[in-house]
């Protein structure tokens, strides 16, 4: 289950006081179905911004994003939300687990938003958590888990609905090297076993090198040009 991701001429700028800062200056990108692409670049280069635009979390100033042939710029807020729910799994640097919900409840959340049957969701979430060796942490709250465990829960949550696209923003950035390595391995394994298209933003050149393709974002453009 995978999709093609295309971006053409993406531009984005922010107002910094009275000064306008151009973050993306015409990014072109194409990711093939099932491909895992790493995007690296210095801090402030716009890596996260690119990920947010691809995920429909933010709106570009110019250019277009197309996922599986569907352009995101034509969708309203509710349609975009539904599209994200059905198509994209997100993993962020700071996990962003919901602190009021247990591990399994966090993993089940995208399905609950989609209105799926709870029993089916619970079965899927339990299997996924067992797959990342958290079968004995189902009823723990995020505060009762280590950083690596929290990130593994976040990974399960991103994949529970088997989305065709996984977007990861510094998924190991907040973890020690050992925990980071483990999370990356799991992510790669789950991505490959499901054939999910994945785009990962990272500062870690070693992890980036292990992806199928490596892109560098610098000066607001991708190097080499995204295919």
């Amino acid at each position, binding site marked *: 289950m995978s999709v093609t991701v295309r971006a053409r001429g993406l531009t984005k700028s922010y107002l910094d006081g009275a000064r306008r800062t151009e973050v993306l200056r015409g990014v072109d990108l194409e990711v093939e179905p099932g491909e895992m692409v790493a995007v690296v670049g210095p801090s402030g280069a716009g890596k996260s911004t690119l990920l947010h635009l691809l995920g429909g979390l933010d709106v570009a100033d110019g250019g277009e994003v197309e996922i*599986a042939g569907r352009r995101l710029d034509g969708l309203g807020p*509710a349609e975009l*939300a*539904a599209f994200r729910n059905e198509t994209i799994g*997100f993993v962020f640097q*700071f996990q962003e687990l*919901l*602190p009021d919900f247990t591990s399994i409840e966090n993993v089940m959340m995208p399905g609950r938003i989609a209105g799926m049957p709870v029993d089916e969701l619970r079965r899927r979430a339990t299997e996924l958590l067992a797959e990342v060796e958290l079968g004995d942490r189902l009823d723990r709250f995020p505060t009762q888990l280590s950083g690596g465990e929290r990130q593994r829960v976040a990974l399960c*949550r991103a994949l529970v609905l088997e989305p065709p696209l996984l977007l990861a923003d510094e998924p190991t950035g907040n973890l020690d090297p050992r925990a980071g390595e483990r999370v990356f391995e799991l992510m790669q394994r789950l991505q490959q076993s499901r054939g999910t298209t994945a785009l990962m933003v990272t500062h870690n050149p070693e992890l980036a090198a292990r992806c199928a393709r490596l892109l560098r974002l610098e000066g607001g453009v991708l190097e080499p040009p995204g295919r």
Partner: protein
Amino acid sequence: MSRPPRRPSAERRPAAGVALYHARRYLWSTRRDAYVTFLSATAAGGMALGVAALILSLAMLSGLQQALKGEILARTPEIRVTLPPDADPAAARRSVAAVAGVREARLAAGGRGWAVAGGRARPVELAGFDGPVPETFPGAAGGRPGLYVSERLAGLWALEPGDLVELASSRPALSPFGPLPTVRRLRLAGVFDAGRTELEERVALPLADARELLGDRELTLLVSAGGLQRARRLAPAVSQALPAGARVETWQDINRALFFALRLEKTLLFLAVLLIVVVAGLALVADLSLIIASKRPELGMLGAMGATPRTLRRVFLWLGGLLVAIGGGCGVALGTAGAWLLDRWRVLRLGEAFFIDYVPFTLRPADLAAVVAAVTLLTLLCAGWAARRAAALSPVEALRR
């Protein structure tokens, strides 16, 4: 080979279920934050206090108004007909008595006069009646024709049945010595209960004597339909049976000004006490706004996972609704139980100066429904206003650290 994603279908999402799921969890989880807990308790407690105060004050006013209405209606004819000057009173009485549903129709005469006994005089309202004493004279209703004064006047003047009382009217009678007041001397037949609401002294006397004193210009027809609501329904038929120019008034028409004042009093009291609930509603806005601000990253993550702005708005509508349901529920229980206890044990005693001995509490379903409706509307407004902020959050802004 790329798999086309399913078409986004925000409309078919059961947002209410997941919204309630989150709201219930937030309701308990926010207890961990002392400030949020304080604000939540203030909102729910204020709501409880406001609802209880509304229920108690409305129940008290309903009780008082019901007692007052009972006192007044006991002395008010169900239907009163004022005949035109050229009408034949006996024929009009027969026509009305023949109307289906009319239990009784009797002629009556009323006007101003004086009662004199033992060298003392007092202005009175003369009420002449035909046949036995009418029901508008409680305590003497159904008694034989004769003169009846209030227990109060009898006590004041030490009158006993059989004593002579002079009644004088303002209608002059011509005599060789010029105009003189018309006077009738009648023996006291009994007394009636004037209650504590009658400020004006009434005197009941046989119709023939009243007509002597007042003439026929003050003649009316008192109609009984056997119930207040029946009287309202019967009034048009009574009107049709009468000659043109006759004026038919129901007990409602007679007391229209009083009933309007009572309704106005209740409405104003409701609005004044509702202010407590409004203040609690503002505390609810502050509470929800604080929760929304403290949960920004989570709301951003929910947005990233596909929660629509509508779902996020519903989360906080539900949360506000739950807080108000807890507070309002306590308020309803407190107010209802309080009203019942205060009425059952007659806790609030009144002195002799009042028309009743204690403050009665009557909780009417319509009042309770009005309180619940007002609180629900206010909750929707307050929670809805706060929840708009959650719906307006951009996921990327909310996720930004």
